[in-house]
């Protein structure tokens, strides 16, 4: 029996030592290592994988900075525990992309109270428990999309009128509500523009294809499809293509990720007429974060709101180079 317990202990010890040492940093350097901790809510989403890649690339410019990224796999409790443990390690900077607003509010407050500078990335929380909050303006994206659609229809018919199919993401998410309301701020001024179908596809391409098929059967004439993210816009295109009607309308999406699977490539290929880059917010986070690390007296703004760029055929090729990162 003693042998078995000993075997268990030795096995555990071996495992832990291997695991811990394989992820430990290299030899210690003379200069003080700055520790930046990033709590990411879900590595599995393409938008967030892109955030991680850019975060790693930008921080690598500073050899005295050690970056650690923790993935919470969309689990609130896991993210709370990961942030708690980071607090114990006393990082020089803590960046959090909260999975949900309510659960992460208290623990980020703890971080602020223990004197750690906290950057809240892209999604907000219930209380301003951060040093600074960097986000993108979704309502502005909605307005830009709306304006693009109005301009397109004005050119097509000589005046702003036409049939629009809207495809929405998860209802109740701030980004969804804002992208919807922003477009409607614009559409409200033009009674000739009609939303003939309001479909919900939860950000997912396959669902959008099904919803679009239904919309195509119900409406003999569609001018524009405004999908609140690129995968849904692509799904809508595929549905129209199956019925041979893709030339009848244009497709507009949001996200504008680079790389061969992203929205920018789809604009280059002529599948999407336009997309709107949903900023990763990472370059601003690194810029502000780096200043916080180096300059003790620097007081960042409480909120930084980033604006989107519209991608159309004209600037797609250039944007593709700009927004595509290699790991």
């Amino acid at each position, binding site marked *: *029996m003693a042998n*078995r*317990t000993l*075997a*268990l*202990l030795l*096995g*555990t*010890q071996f*495992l*832990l*030592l291997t*695991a*811990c040492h*394989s*992820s*430990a940093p290299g030899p210690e350097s003379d200069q003080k290592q700055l520790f930046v901790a990033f709590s990411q809510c879900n590595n599995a989403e393409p938008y967030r994988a892109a955030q991680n890649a850019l975060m790693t690339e930008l921080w690598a410019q500073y050899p005295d900075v050690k970056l*650690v990224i*923790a*993935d*919470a*796999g969309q689990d*609130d*409790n*896991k993210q*709370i*525990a*990961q942030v*708690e*443990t980071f607090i*114990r*390690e*006393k990082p020089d900077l803590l960046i959090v992309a909260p999975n*949900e*607003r*309510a*659960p992460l*509010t*208290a623990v980020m407050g703890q971080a602020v109270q223990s004197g750690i500078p906290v950057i809240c990335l892209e999604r907000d929380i*219930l*209380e301003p428990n951060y040093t600074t909050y960097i986000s993108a303006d979704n309502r502005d994206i909605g307005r830009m999309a709306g304006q693009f659609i109005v301009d397109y229809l004005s050119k097509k018919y000589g005046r702003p009128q036409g049939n629009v199919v809207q495809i929405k993401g998860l209802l*109740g998410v701030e980004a969804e509500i804002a992208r919807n309301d922003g477009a409607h701020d614009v559409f409200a001024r033009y009674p000739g523009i009609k939303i003939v179908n309001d479909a919900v596809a939860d950000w997912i391409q396959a669902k959008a294809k099904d919803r679009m098929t239904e919309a195509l059967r119900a409406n003999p004439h569609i001018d524009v499809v405004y999908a609140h993210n690129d995968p849904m816009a692509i799904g809508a295109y595929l549905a129209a293509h199956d019925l041979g009607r893709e030339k009848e309308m244009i497709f507009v999406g949001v996200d504008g990720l680079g790389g061969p699977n992203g929205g920018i490539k789809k604009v280059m290929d002529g599948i999407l007429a336009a997309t709107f880059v949903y900023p990763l917010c990472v370059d601003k986070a690194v810029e502000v974060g780096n200043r916080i690390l180096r300059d003790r007296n620097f007081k960042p703004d409480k909120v930084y709101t980033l604006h989107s760029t519209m991608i159309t055929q004209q600037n797609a090729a250039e944007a593709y180079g700009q927004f595509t990162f290699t790991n």
Partner: protein
Amino acid sequence: MKTRYSERPPLEAPGRLSTARSTGTDRAGAIRLLYRLQALVALLGIIVLAIILSPRAADGSNIFLEAGNLTDILRQVSVTGIIAVAMTFVILTAGIDLSVGSTLALGTSVVAIGLTRWSVPLGDVGRISLAIIAALAAGAAVGALNGAVVAGASIQPFVVTLATMIGVRGLAKWLTDNANIDIGFGQDVAAVFAAFISRKVVVIGSLLVMAAVFWLVLDVTVFGRYVRAVGDNERVARYTGLPIARVKIWVYTLSGLLSGLAGVIYAAENHQGNPNAGVAYELDAIAAVVIGGTSLMGGKGSVSGTVVGTLILGILTNVLRLNNVDSNVEMMVKAVIILLAVAVMSRRKSE
């Protein structure tokens, strides 16, 4: 009392973990002690490793041993720990309860609905108590249903609780319209509830109290002995006239009740009622129970073992996170530890 028991045939084979002290020989007693110690020795080993592998703070102090970090670990394991304590009883009867995660979700939803949507003419304390009692009652009801079907319809616990797992999840989603119910940080009754219940003292205290109560019930009461007997050898237990159906209904009801309690604590800590909470929590609970030395075959095990198993998993996770080990590697390490622990424990059985 003693006379009654001596009339019954012995329920446990010699050498097995026995609470009937009157039947223990010196050898059985020593083996029982070693058994209990085995999990404890593993725990001490992991603690030593954690101290050695812990990074150091700027002033040289050991981060793992900081009071804040140690209480963090206890807080982090409390929710699944509470579920695991009740799961011990279920597994001791050679059963299993897969519905605990869904019942937790139901608990969070009911307490959040009670605090934010019911207008009751009571003070803050009254409204909070009512919401908590409603959540506990909901959990207990689910448990009682599980127990009744397992006992009455003679369907395997795995299948019954699998069905409840799905159905109760659906119920929680239906009650909340599949949306989360946020609990704010203001002055309303929901915020008062969250601020109070989420305190480390209350959370960790709940785990300790539940562990102590269940430990006592298992080791000291007649009911506790019945629980072991049913799992050890149900046929013999039936012949000796034990109230098997009642025992089973009770263990599942307790499991549901504690899952509801875990849900109340979850809602306070996360400041939200969440019908999608607790997915796969049953696996964490079962892992803790199993590492603590309880056998899935029933009859053999202890609440103290479960507590030790819970702590082992919690400290392990903490050590890996303090060393910034990738969370995917973390999962693989945990898997190997669980297998190692069970392999070691089950070797004992054949000796």
